[in-house]
């Protein structure tokens, strides 16, 4: 018993080491292009060259001074946040219903709710254009909000749905048996049990909207300029490093936010 325990301990540790090796290589793979992007953003010439022949922060200065980029940043941030909230509000219950419910046509409903992901975005954009044009909404943030939520919904449903499928039915039963109403059981017991999935879904829903450009181009107007739209514009005729400067700023902000969250969490648990 002891020998086999030790042997399997070794096996466990060797396996774990191998996993970490693979994960490290993966991390290098993930971050290498990021290093290139950051380096290119400090290029003094209006060229996408690496490594830069001369270094300067001129693209950052240009972004800092540009009111248009700042407003695009705020619009993107605010729009993506609303989209994340809305797609969670609609998608989490839907995921629950699809995972736990047993009604006829459930698979078809699931397919329909997920299908916006597969429809080519240009075709979706034109179809939505017709709809929003009839409602007089072309060029409004509201149209983008609805369109992006439609695009983010499938992601929420798939991710949270998987977590609900894995969820132990018993905990919900237990809460109900203790006298909780369905709503209370849902909010206080069911949801926390799928929290990682909800967090992941929220992140993806946010990023789906933050990164999206085709719908913005077709459904938007002069007053709905988002970051991807500005990036697309600047690439159409020039190829200067300002899009890498934007990316670097966003990465820096997100890393900073992550560090702040880490420190706050540690302080709370201390």
């Amino acid at each position, binding site marked *: 018993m002891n020998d086999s325990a030790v042997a399997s301990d070794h096996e466990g540790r060797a396996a774990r080491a191998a996993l970490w090796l693979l994960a490290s290589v993966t991390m290098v793979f993930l971050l290498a292009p990021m290093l290139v992007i950051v380096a290119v953003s400090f290029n003094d*010439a*209006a*060229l*996408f*060259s*690496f490594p830069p*022949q001369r270094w300067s922060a001129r693209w950052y200065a240009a972004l800092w001074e540009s*009111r*248009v980029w700042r*407003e695009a940043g*705020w*619009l993107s941030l*605010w729009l993506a946040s*609303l989209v994340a909230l809305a797609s969670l509000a609609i998608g989490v219950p839907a995921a629950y219903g699809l995972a736990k419910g047993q009604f006829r046509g459930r698979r078809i409903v699931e397919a329909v709710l997920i299908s916006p992901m597969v429809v080519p975005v*240009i075709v979706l954009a*034109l179809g939505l*254009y*017709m709809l929003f*044009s*009839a*409602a*007089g*909404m*072309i*060029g*409004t*943030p*509201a149209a983008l*909000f*609805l369109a992006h939520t439609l695009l983010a919904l499938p992601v929420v449903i798939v991710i949270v749905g998987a977590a609900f499928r894995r969820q132990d039915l018993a905990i919900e039963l237990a809460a109900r048996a203790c006298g909780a109403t369905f709503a209370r059981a849902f909010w206080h017991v069911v949801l926390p049990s799928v929290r990682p999935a909800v967090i992941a879904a929220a992140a993806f829903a946010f990023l789906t909207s933050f990164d999206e450009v085709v719908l913005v*181009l*077709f459904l938007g*107007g*002069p*007053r709905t*300029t988002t970051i991807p*739209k*500005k990036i697309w*514009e*600047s*690439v*159409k*005729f*020039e*190829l200067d490093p300002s899009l890498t400067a934007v990316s670097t700023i966003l990465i820096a902000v997100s890393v900073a936010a992550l560090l702040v969250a880490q420190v706050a969490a540690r302080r709370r648990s201390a």
Partner: protein
Amino acid sequence: MTDRSGPSRRAMLLSGASLTIASPFVHLGAARADNREIVVASWGGSRTTAMREVMFAPFEQATGIRVRDDGPPEAAKVKAMVESGNVTWDILDTDIPAILAMVNAKLLEPIDYAKIDKAKLARIPSVLHHPYGLGHLIYSFNIVYNTKTFPNGTQPKTWAEVWDGVRFKGARCFPFRGGLSPQLEFAAIADGVSVDKVYPLDIERAWSSMDRLRPLVTKWYATHAEAIQLLSSGEIDICCTIGPRGLVAKKEGAPIDVEFAGGKLAPDNWAIVKGARNTEAIYQFLNFVIDGKVQAELAKRIPYGPSSQDAFAHLSEAESRQLNTSPENLAKQFWTDIEWWGKVAENGKTNNENQIERYARWMVKRA
């Protein structure tokens, strides 16, 4: 983008935000029915910034007609606008393939040349007076090459030389999708057709010539910016791309140069959307912006050639030498025959459409 009219953008954003949360169906578009405003759809970025500086702002001051800019002038969006009956753009700044596609789909108003200033019009080459588009900015497809691979004048100077992978070794890239692709004229010329006999194109001859080019091409690129990037980094040695953009990169220090000989000129045009309402204001705008002086100012900021030969009277020697429509460079190049590309072939589609589709097929099936 640089719309400075109306309340501050932050106020608009905040009110838009609260309205969105409160009620998602509020119409936020500004009213357009008055004669004091036109909307120009252009490409954004430095191009629109330059246009606002030298065209829109002076025009607003001179006439009191407000110019709002929007964009980009996607043909599909114009089609959606016209079909839904909700046309919000008046003037488009766009290229010939888009115009041909839109003409075919009946999305444009013909330009009433009677309303255009005759003197100014005469200074623009007549080949640019398309029934549905008036050429104003000229770009060109040229041989753009890496100066490290081809220093001191050793670069290919004709398309036949570009097709010659033995004497001119190097990776090539050609455009696939975007601009007047495929580059059948160059294929025909490389095969021996003389420039003045290029049109009407011998399509089959051009395609067999393309077959001979295929093994030499390392990358069929989708955006011209990508081509310039590949040239600068040395991945590609010879490229068929927009000459003026190559010159911009050269100014920034990239090891790139442009051979204007044998190049093909093509215009960006002003076009009028079907159903655009403020016709008077539109023609006032057009007459204003085809002025040689205005075009010269634009040429100082955007590397493309002005269409009006008047513009060169307002440019210095150094400035005009770089432009692809300077008298010197103009002589080396030929004009795209817009009529040929727009001609309807036997199957009811334009040559442009047919060849774009054939190009996709040729690429996918290797045949």
